[in-house]
């Protein structure tokens, strides 16, 4: 079981990114039920683990952060889901 993905918020972030090329922070904040500060901390953990790639840029004059899933993040999600399925099947 992947310790990083045990958090429901981090799992939700990975879920949001799995079929996306990239997603902005504001979009993640809108989709996931968490405060901006809390979400920021969880995303930082995912970035630190190498599961999520962060790209900072300016959109007009406003700074914007957008995120994409890395190969190791995708592999970690698959492994984690397999582990969850095994656990869930064990009743």
């Amino acid at each position: 079981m992947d310790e990083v993905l045990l958090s429901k918020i981090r799992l939700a972030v990975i879920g949001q990114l799995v079929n996306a090329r990239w997603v902005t922070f504001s979009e993640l904040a809108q989709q996931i039920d968490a405060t901006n500060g809390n979400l920021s901390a969880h995303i930082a953990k995912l970035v630190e683990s190498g599961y999520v790639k962060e790209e900072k840029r300016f959109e007009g004059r406003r700074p914007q952060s957008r995120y994409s899933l890395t190969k190791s993040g995708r592999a970690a999600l698959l492994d984690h889901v397999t582990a969850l399925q095994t656990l869930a099947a064990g009743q």
Partner: protein
Amino acid sequence: MESSEAREHLSAVDRIVAATDREVRLPPALLIVVGVVCAIINGVRQARGIGIDVPADQYIQLPLIALIVLVGLVESRRAQRARRESLIAGYAGAALFCAFIVTMTLNITAQHRLISDTGMSVVWSATFSMALLFAGMMGSRLLLAAGAAMLACTALATYFDTWLSGTLAIGWLLGFLVPGLVLARGVSNGRGPAL
């Protein structure tokens, strides 16, 4: 972790993955412009074929193709400002771009030597209907139907000597203009959650 908690986490992942980025969303403006421009190009050829006096192709095609490029650039800029971009939208865009590159290469190299003007029009329609079918299969019933309609028009056109270009023009309208108009109205075009 308890098994009940594991099931809860699994269902949360299922819900998110089933609900996000399942639809291919192409820019409606680009679909509309491509449909109208290509229908005009084929329509002009059809008009010439039935004896109507129309300007030479180069006077019509160059500004219209420049219009497609301009709208393509604007839409690509707009896509960069979006809040998210799905993988399948990227693949669908790549399929259409490849269709353009392949056909344009043939247009430059083989037209007039191996393929006639009319034959090349059929190649353009066939290649783009294939790209639409590909995009549709990934996640858009609308584009799938549009690709099928365009392919049907392309196949049908080859049986009409006199009305070939006109039938191809109808194919471009059905393949690009119609889905563009539907998407511009904000109607969902995808398969919906598949899980």
